[in-house]
């Protein structure tokens, strides 16, 4: 259950930290210690529009129940008339023993030339010693390079969603960030692949199947959606992941079919013509893998389809304290495959 301690108190941008301290002091007086402030991350959500801003605020309020964080939601409109304003609030969640755990939320809206005040303001608001994640909502920053670069400077993690990418250029940009900065990219679309990776891995757990990893001839990945780059980005990441982990280029085919977004099935063909099949069974909420290659692999391997609302994906990414090395390897190959 999420509750708001002090809903959207408008504050002067020069005294946000002081106003937050006042908020806690007031609550301590009323609640007598029943409220605990917690933060494991500094989470900055960057948005370009008020719709994206509203969505990001809602998503992070829910995510903070599982990963307490100081949330800073930025809405930047470089083309608007110059202004900057801010609000504060706290998202509270009940945990055991009637205790309330609260995460702070700061909202900054800036337009026109004032947009350039945002990065230093955000830096001043970061909690010390806690890692920093920047969730870039919507289009990646192709213009306003300096602005984006300064905002990303303190970031340990850059969260993007390749399902929203417009083309190979976006993958290229994220790859460059991984290579040229200390910010590790993380991808909501990669988190959506988790059950596919788990089901595929289970198929190759029995020793006779593991030997067959070297005998994979080709992959055929079917995914739904409108056939755009974003709609097939998950399938591309899957193929890139297999290549990265097996240290081999694998022939592949990406097929678009059906309306439901995301991967629908994967067919693995081995050199001897036998196959492995991995399919989503939406009605049972599982991804099922099996193969006719060996008797042991004929048993169904199942992986539960995990909750995949944006807040669930963000929580999964933030629960991993270190950069995801497998994703970074995968990204490099995906960029090559997409080019």
């Amino acid at each position, binding site marked *: 259950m999420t509750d708001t301690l002090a809903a959207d108190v408008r504050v002067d941008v020069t005294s946000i930290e002081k106003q937050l301290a006042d908020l806690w002091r007031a609550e301590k007086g009323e609640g007598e210690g029943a409220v605990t402030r917690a933060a494991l991350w500094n989470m900055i959500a960057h948005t370009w529009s008020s719709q994206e801003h509203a969505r990001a605020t809602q998503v992070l309020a829910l995510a903070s129940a599982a990963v*307490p964080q100081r949330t800073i939601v930025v809405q930047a409109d470089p083309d608007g008339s110059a202004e900057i304003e801010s609000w504060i609030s706290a998202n509270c969640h009940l945990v055991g023993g009637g205790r309330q755990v609260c995460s702070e939320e700061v909202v900054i809206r800036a337009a026109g030339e004032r947009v350039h005040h945002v990065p230093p303001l955000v830096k001043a608001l970061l909690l010390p010693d806690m890692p920093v994640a920047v969730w870039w909502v919507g289009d990646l920053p192709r213009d306003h390079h300096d602005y984006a670069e300064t905002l990303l400077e303190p970031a340990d993690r850059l969260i993007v969603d390749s399902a929203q990418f417009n083309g190979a250029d976006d993958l290229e940009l994220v790859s460059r960030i991984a290579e040229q900065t200390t910010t590790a990219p993380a991808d909501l679309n990669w988190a959506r692949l988790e059950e596919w990776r788990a089901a595929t891995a289970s198929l190759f757990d*029995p020793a006779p199947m593991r030997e067959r990893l070297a005998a994979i001839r080709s992959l055929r990945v079917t995914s739904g959606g409108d056939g755009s780059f974003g709609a097939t980005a998950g399938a591309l990441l899957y193929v890139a992941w297999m290549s990265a982990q097996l240290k081999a280029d694998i022939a592949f085919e990406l097929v678009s079919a059906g309306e439901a977004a995301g991967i629908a099935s994967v067919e693995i063909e081995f050199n001897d013509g036998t196959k492995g099949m991995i399919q989503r069974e939406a009605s049972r909420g599982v991804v099922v893998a099996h193969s006719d290659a060996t008797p042991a692999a004929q048993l169904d391997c199942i*992986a539960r389809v995990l909750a995949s609302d944006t807040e669930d994906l963000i929580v999964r990414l933030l629960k991993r304290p270190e950069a995801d*090395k497998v994703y970074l390897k995968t990204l490099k190959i995906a960029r090559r495959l997409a080019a």
Partner: protein
Amino acid sequence: MQPNPLREGLEQERVPEASCLVIFGASGDLTQRKLIPGLYSLAHDGLLPAGQTIVGFARAELTDEQFRASMREACDKHARTKPVDEAVWESFARGLFYVSGEFADPAAYERLHQRLREFDATRGTGGRRIYYLAVPPTFFAQVVELLGAEKMVRDPERGGAYTRVIVEKPFGHNLETAKELNRVAVSTFRERQVFRIDHYLGKETVQNLLVLRFANGIFEPFWNRQYIDHVQFTVAESIGVEKRGNYFETAGITRDIIQNHMLQLVSLVAMEPPVAFEADAVRDEKVKVLRALRPIAESVRGQYGEGSVLGEHAVAYRAEEKVAPDSRVETYAALKVFVDNWRWADVPFYVRAGKRLPKRVTDISIHFRPAPYPLFSKLGMKMHANVLAIRIQPDEGISLKFDSKLPGPTVRTAPVSMEFRYATSFGAEPPEAYERLLLETMLGDATLFARRDEIETAWAWLDPLLQRWADDPAPPPLYSAGTWGPEAADELLEKDGRKWRRP
């Protein structure tokens, strides 16, 4: 065989190979409350391989289907993740089987063996076996010997598929019986095949003791006699003996809690850094602590009388079901323990465990020495010692108490607490201890299991005290249910100028 490269980076990075896990005593409470729900939760989290096969073995005549139905009820009631996921259950239940038989009947083992061989062919279990002995100690020798006689145990020296056995406490009643149990176990299995479960070691917070001590640079320099005044261990239960009167009459709190769970905690707090986070390296260090324990000179025992716990009337121990009206069994024990080694010389470890105490709590507190020069005492202020408290259950977490200046123009101080709580920081429900321990057995990692020498050393240390108490014709002093034990337990610390921390 190389590890599966597709597992890298997954939440389920370590998944064991499929095996046959046979539960002897499958109709018992432990199977229903902990083992099957724990295994189901592992399947739910994707930590069991597709071919994992679980075979219940007990006297009751049941079909596979009846066994599955009864285990489904158990999961509905006791699984960590509820409601039970139908798709996961369906797949999990396909690997559940039942064999009916007496523990002493060789023909039943023959039937069991035959079925296990079938599973090797149909479910890819490859001859891998884990036998879980959820049976009373009286059946232990029988089961182990018949497993050996039926050639159901493979010697690891010969290579090939593994055989492991999981043994539940009590690991004996004293040193002699513990040695006998161990002798029986190693007559059929090698020591490295024996996994002795102490479920405390499966708890996240207990494992976190090692992380706290050895993954953080700030604690270890202070973790010794120079900075630590004393250490307190409390395992308090608000419940009485409930339906375990029969067992408790032969055990008492010292055998039930102190000999195993609490000595594990003492070992983890007192041990030296292991050279690696590996089974024998960790257990070597733990056993060194047990060997360094000084014979017990000061102890207190007690037995609960009538009283009130959490607002409810509580009957006296002697009025409990299946308890002798003149019972001399202790339901409370407090010991002053010394670890005679370089690090801990003369630092008392106060250990207490009891039933029918005011609340259920397991807690370790490290009490540091006061500041060397009482600068602020001259201003009339009371200085408090720093306390690092590790809450094992419930509300798991760690807190550090220190003095702070009160705001204002005069110098006044007050103790404050800096807290970390699992629920606040990590939210998610931690896995049950049995889940972790079952998974570790399948993976063959014995780090979280007790080794033979640990068990025997612990008994060797406790036996003289238990004998003294047994020889003492006087009954243990009574304490009222709902209090923190007999007065003598408070005096045990007061005469040292200390007192029990209220957990």
